[in-house]
């Protein structure tokens, strides 16, 4: 018997059934109301969030790696201000000093509105995700799944870095797990790699994806994708 048939048999197995709890439907309806109220509150606070990101100027991204000072060897994640287009036009291959509280790569930054993100001319529309967020592809990441994700409420929630880009602590695609652990000692391991969360200047995180076909990672395994994401449950960020 082949594996395809075995998998189909497994998924027909009655032992997959789970008994529904009494009153489950009402519990779900109540939960849905709670989620809706929360989303409406977040939507009304969206403008406040954007302002908060702008006024948090002067906070250097280099500080999020645990206080270690390290000169990036290549393009850096930088804090560019949307009010200085001339500076944004400078090549992302050159290290730039952080100048405000915005977190991003090149012209894109987390929390940026969808209209502003589209105005960069970098994004090609993809499908919507199941939570109603919008997936975009970019020329620099043609083969990466869901490289940029934008929430109608929170703006840009995910930016996937080009393979050649390095974080402020010098991690890029191809870095080893040992490198990640050394430069981000507070990074947390999970089944797809490592994540490093910071509140500086607002809650967001790096994801260092290590696709090796296993749930655990050895020191010599290498990073296959680097992402920046807002810590939000808004979108289906797979």
């Amino acid at each position, binding site marked *: 018997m082949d594996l395809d048939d075995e998998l189909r048999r497994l998924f027909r*197995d009655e032992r997959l059934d789970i008994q529904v709890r009494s009153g489950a439907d009402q519990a*779900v309806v109540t939960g*849905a109301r709670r989620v809706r109220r929360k989303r409406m509150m977040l939507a009304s606070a969206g403008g406040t969030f954007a302002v908060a990101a702008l006024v948090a100027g002067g906070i250097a991204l280099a500080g999020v790696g645990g206080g270690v000072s390290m000169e990036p060897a290549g393009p850096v994640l930088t804090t560019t201000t949307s009010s200085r287009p001339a500076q944004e036009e400078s090549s992302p291959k050159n290290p730039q000093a952080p100048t405000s509280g915005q977190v991003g790569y090149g012209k894109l930054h987390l929390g940026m509105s969808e209209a502003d993100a589209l105005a960069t001319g970098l994004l090609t529309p993809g499908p919507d995700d199941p939570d109603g967020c919008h997936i975009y592809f970019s020329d620099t990441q043609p083969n990466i799944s869901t490289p940029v994700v934008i929430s109608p409420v929170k703006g840009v929630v995910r930016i996937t870095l080009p393979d050649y880009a390095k974080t402020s602590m010098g991690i890029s695609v191809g870095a080893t797990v040992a490198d990640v652990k050394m430069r981000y000692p507070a990074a947390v391991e999970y*089944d797809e790699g490592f994540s490093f969360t910071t509140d500086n200047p607002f809650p967001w995180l790096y994801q260092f994806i290590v696709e090796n076909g296993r749930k655990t990672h050895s020191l010599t395994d290498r990073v296959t994708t680097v992402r920046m994401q807002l810590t939000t449950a808004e979108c289906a960020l797979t």
Partner: protein
Amino acid sequence: MAGLGGERAAVEDFAEFVRVSLPGLLRYGHALTGNPHDAADLVQGVLEKVGSRWQAVLGKGPDPLAYVRRSMANGHVSRWRRFRRENLVAEFPDSAASPQFDRLEHEPLWQAMRELPPRQRAVVVLRFYEGLSEAEIAASLGVTKGTVKSQNSKAMATLRAKLGGFADGRE
């Protein structure tokens, strides 16, 4: 814009959808996550989100059940579900240590499936539980067909390796 009457009708419609679809969704969640507790957590979380925008979901197409199942597949591979909520939707035996707790405990293929990374497992479930094509899986998960192909290939290779001669007919 729907008024209060429309909103109430949407809530009632969603409640009916939950009543009818919950057993099947829990079962599907079990296949996706590999254990009943995570299945209940996943189903509850996705239904609450979907229900919070039910009218918009109905506007997306004629099959909200398919939409919910795609959302579950995405939710499963999402790393945002890092906590387990209080279960409100599924009934479990009193003790997790009960010998009946994991009724598929001695199924080798089930155990091998549980070891797969979430995205590979989702691809396998979408392919063999839902019977979706590579293109449909790619659209569901928001990835390229190439990614689906490679994830499926890795998953099947891992399953074959774990099952040894069993999967190759050399039982």
